[in-house]
Each structure stands twice: as C-alpha cells, then as structure tokens.
C-alpha cells in the first residue's frame, strides 16, 4: 500500500470514537466537515465547543437533530471567542468555589474565516489578549460559503466570488488574503499553527498541542470548498496538498514565538497547478498569475527565514 492511500483511511482509525457524527448536511467533498471530524478525534470528549454561525453550524445542528456528541453551543456570528471566554471563566470560578469538580475540561471555539478574520476579529483579539485557556480553530474556506460564496478578507487575490466577480473592470478579489495566523502571532499567544485536512496527522498533532498548552492557542485550518471554489469534490484532498506544496498555504507552527515549518518544499510547485482545478481562478490572465506566483514565493521565503530553514 502506498503511503498516500494509507493516509486516506488511517486517520479514521486513530480513534473509532466519532464525536462529530455522520448524517449532517455538508456538501459532497466538504473540506471543513472533514477537518472538523479530525479535530474532534484529536480533542476527545472532555471538551465544550462554541461554534460561530456559518457552514459548520447550520449543517450539523438543524433542530431537532444534532451531529455533536459533546457539549456544544452556538449563539451568534461574531462572538464565538466571547462566549468561550464566559464559559472558561465560569468553569474556573465554579471549580474555585467548590461548586464542581475540576475535570480538566478543554474549551474550544470553532469559526469560519468570515467569523474569524472579519466580523469576529475583535472578540478573538480580546480573548487572546485576556489570556483565556482555550483553543480557537478557524476553518478557512476563503469566503462566506454558507450565504453563497461572498468574498471575505480571507479570499485570495484574484479569486471569483459572488460579491467580487470578475468582469470587464474587475479581476475578481482585488485585495490580498488577510494573514490571520500572523495576527494571532502578534498577540504573543503561546501557540499558533496552520493545518489542512489533507495532512490529517499533522492536523491532529496540532490540535492536541493546542489544547495541552496553557493559555490561548490558535489553529488555522485550510478547508477546501468544492462548492465555492468551483472544483470537483473528489479533488478536495489533492487541492489541499497542492496549496501546501505550492506554498500558497504553508503548514507551520509558532510555539512561544518560535517558528517551525512542518513541511518544507525548497522547490515549490507552481501556483498554476494549485489553481488549475478551481474555476474560481479560471479567468486570471498570465500576468496576474505571475504576480500571485511572485508574492507566494516571497512570502514563503520570508517564512522559511523566520523558521530558520537554510
């Protein structure tokens, strides 16, 4: 058996305990649902999850059903880190006051890229600054997919979305993707990482590290979205790999300020290869793709430098 084939089913066997159970309404090939499944396997059951409004919330909690086998709460879009702050404080206070026994419960926040880098950034920044002991997981599918593929600040340069369509006077998204992991790093929190469900063991390791470290931890998960990226659903894993191998979405960790590049590619695959299966990039001209290529190469070399890779 080739390693790549093993990777497809071995993650399921890490633990057979499913915490995010099937029957939910995610699209075929959803990278986010897959990532949530892996994250939950790494978390175990001794957690409380706060979920922002978005795909992950609406697919799995339609009354009277739920896919969540652990305590789970959703309230609004932008306040995920805030609700989590209250839960964590409540737990600490109640343990201290002898009202409940300390069972080392972990506090987890889930949100999409819009709920994190746009509408929820203030709440997240506040929670990181206050130093709550929690893990925040951002599932980044690079646009508001739940509402119908509108652009977010996490949408990559040049991509088509319904609110940044390409046209005679538009190349599509005219701004560069907001670098949310670096914003988390700037808060000097003990743990920041990027992950992708195409690398399930790396992803699960990072989630485990995130909950073990005391204080705020932030994991940003690149979650391919076949529906919104106009890509074949069977290519979700491959697109994730191409994003990493092309340097578009490098996998790295920042532990107490120290950068560590988890997968290094001295010879990056061309961004064209990553973009090719996705119709959201099909309108891009050669010069725009060259511009993106140059930016990706530059950012990747800066990251290598930070990680001390020679």
């Amino acid at each position: 058996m080739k390693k790549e084939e093993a990777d497809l089913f071995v993650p399921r066997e890490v633990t057979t305990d499913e915490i995010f159970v099937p029957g939910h309404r995610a699209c075929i090939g959803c990278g986010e649902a897959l990532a949530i499944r892996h994250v939950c396997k790494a978390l175990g059951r001794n957690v409380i999850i706060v979920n922002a409004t978005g795909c992950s919330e609406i697919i799995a909690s339609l009354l009277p059903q739920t896919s969540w086998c652990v305590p789970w709460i959703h309230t609004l879009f932008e306040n995920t880190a805030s609700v989590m702050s209250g839960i964590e404080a409540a737990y600490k206070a109640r343990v201290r006051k002898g009202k409940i026994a300390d069972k080392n419960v972990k506090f987890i926040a889930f949100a999409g890229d819009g709920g994190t880098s746009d509408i929820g950034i203030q709440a997240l920044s506040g929670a990181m600054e206050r130093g709550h002991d929690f893990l925040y997981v951002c599932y980044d599918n690079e646009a508001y997919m739940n509402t119908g593929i509108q652009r977010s600040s996490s949408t990559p340069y040049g991509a088509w979305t319904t609110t940044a369509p390409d046209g005679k006077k538009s190349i599509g998204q005219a701004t560069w993707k907001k670098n949310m992991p670096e914003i988390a790093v700037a808060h000097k929190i003990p743990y920041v990482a990027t992950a992708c469900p195409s690398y399930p063991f790396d992803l699960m390791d990072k989630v485990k590290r995130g909950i073990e470290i005391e204080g705020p931890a932030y994991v940003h998960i690149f979650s391919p979205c076949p529906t919104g990226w106009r890509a074949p659903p069977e290519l979700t894993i491959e697109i994730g790999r191409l994003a990493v191998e092309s340097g578009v979405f490098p996998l790295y960790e920042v532990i107490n300020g120290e950068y560590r590049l988890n997968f290094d590619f001295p010879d990056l695959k061309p961004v064209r290869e990553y973009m090719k299966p996705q119709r959201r990039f099909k309108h891009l001209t050669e010069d725009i793709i060259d511009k993106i290529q140059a930016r990706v190469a530059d950012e990747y070399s800066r990251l290598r430098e930070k990680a001390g890779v020679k």
Partner: protein
Amino acid sequence: MKKEKVVGLEGSFAVAEAVRLANADVIAAYPITPQTHIVERLSEMVAEGELDADFICVESEHTAMSACVGASAAGARVFTCTAGQGLELMHEVLYIPSSMRLPVVAVIANRALSAPLSVWCDHSDMMAVRDIGWIQMLAENNQQAFDLTLCAYRIAEDSDVLFPAMVHIDGFYLSHVIEDMSLPEDEEIAGFIPEYEHPFTLDPDNPVSMGCYGPPFIYPEAKKAQEVAFENTMLKILETWKAFGDRFGRYYAPVEKYRMEDAKIALLTMGSCSETAMLAIDELRAKGEDVGLIRLRLWRPFPFKEFREAVKDVEVLVVLDRCVSFGMGGPVCSEVKAALYDQQKKPHVVGFIGGLGGRDILIEGFEYMIRSALEKVKAIKRGEEIETEMIGVRE
C-alpha cells in the same frame, strides 16, 4: 423584621453590594459613563477578595453580554452592567439569553443615545430593548436599586422563570448620588437567593447542543413557548417581591400608587423623577386638586392587570415619556393607550415627552403637565386626538 444597618451609599455602590451579596460567579463588563462606578466597585471587591468572582474585563459590551451568555450556559451566576450606547451594542446579543432561557442579570444606568453625544439620563436605551424578552424593572432611589437587583437574581434564576432580568437605575440621578439606605447584614441575606441550578448546562458528562438552527417547522413553536413562559414570569415576580417584603419590610408592586385615593387625575412616571413627581402631587393636593401618581415599577412583562386596576376611576391620565419614538410620540404613552383600548371605561390619556438627555424635570414641570393636560382635555372635541407635547424645549 431582619437586622439591617443604615448607610450612605451611592446608587452604583448599592448595586455592587447586591451583586456581592448574591455571590455572583462571573462578571463581564465594559466601562461606560454613567455605569463606571459599578464596575469600579466590583473590581475592588474582587481585588480585595470580598467577592469570589471572575471579572472579565472585556473589549466591548457585545462581548460583555456574550461572555455572560457563555458563563450562564456553563452554570455560573453572572452579572453585567452598561448604559446607553453600550446597551445598543449589546442589542443583538440580548435576544440570546431570553430565547435560550439563561438568567443573566444586568443593571442599566439609563442614558440617552447619540447623536448628539449625551452621557446623561433618559430612557431611550431601555425603550429600544423592550421587545426582547428581558424582565425590566425600574428603581427610583438607591434603596430600590439594591433591593431590585437582589430580587432580580431570585426571579431570573427561578426554575419556573429562567429569563434574563434588567434593573434600570437612572444614570447620574441614582448611579452617582449618595443616599441613606438600609443594608441587610450578610447573614440576613443568606438563603434569600437559592443556589443557581439550571436544568441544562454545558457539561461533558451530560452533553447537550444549545442554540441549534430552527427551520420554519419549529421556529414558531419555539417562539410561542417563549412568549407563554415569559408571561408566566409575572407570578414569580410577585411572589419574590412579596417574600422580599416579608423579610425586609419593603414591598414592591408592578404598579405603585401614591396618593391615588379618589384621584380623578393621575400622573404616570417611571424611574428617578417619580420622587420629584411625588412632591408635585403633594403641592397640588395641598391646593385641593384630586391628583395622584402612578409609577410603573415593572415595564416587562407589562403589568396590564395592575395598571388597569390603578386607573379604573381616573378621568385624565398624564403620561411622561423620557424617550421619543420618532413618528409615534412617546413609547410609554403608546403602550398605555394600547393597554386601555379595550376597556369600556377609560381615562383621557395625555402624553408628554421630557427629561431628554439629562434635562431636569422640576416640580413646576410636573405641575405644568397636569394643568396643561386638563386644558387639552377640555379643549378637544369628540374624535380629536391630543398630540404629545415635548416640554421644556426652547423654540
């Protein structure tokens, strides 16, 4: 009667005392004038170990209410306080505890809304949140601020209630004024507020999903259940105020009357200006006028029965609003009229708007309202509407 000591206390400190005596577990608040003295005092209490609570100094009121929601869902007794713009920033979140049945207690130091910027008192903030499903009660002095805050915990957390509650204290008039008040000894409070035990909390041993997605086949049922349960809170509000009165000697009612015996003319007020209104009533009574005062202690749920009973023999009802509902007059006046619409015998209702943005209403102001209301009633013909007048405005 229980043992109490008389102290001079600012309204904000009185509220903080009530929160300390309630032994809140989590406080999440963001500073805003004129609420600041409450958070400052609570911070001191936590810093000195007088109150064993986690004080989350949040980055906004939106987060303050969100953190209270999370903490309450995790089984903690919570507190927040805000005012004016802060309550408006919370607005979106306020719907969550009322629809998810989380007994958050909040004190609002009533403040006007921008623009122009005003830190001073009126009731625009509390009126903007009247349809959300929070129990709303008003204090008119510091004693009441203390008493009602304590009662709010017992009401909100009752297993037959489980709704959030707001206690409104007028910004500056109460929040920054020192008055004599009776403070029960700590041991006297013990047992008045039972331990908070929500039937469903976020607990890995008993996992539940909270805040699920409600499609059309279930949303109306959820809303009806909420409305029925909210109306039923009245019973526990009355029970709690009775229990408080029996224990501490101070009785509260949803509609409180002052010199209403045989009154043909009634003035209706809410909040701190009611005490000035009482002085005006005294003066008019001394001149032989048949006037009395009605104060709405409870704004939500609206006390229909008690209100109709209070005005059943009144011929002219003068309503003061400290808020403008643009294009609609005053919100209190509108609601009072709605509450009377189906009644066979009902008073003329004359609305006034005053006290906006901290403009004081003096005794003469209330006297003017009553005199002017009588003239207006005399002057109207059948079928004519009496327009709401904004008083004390330079033109």
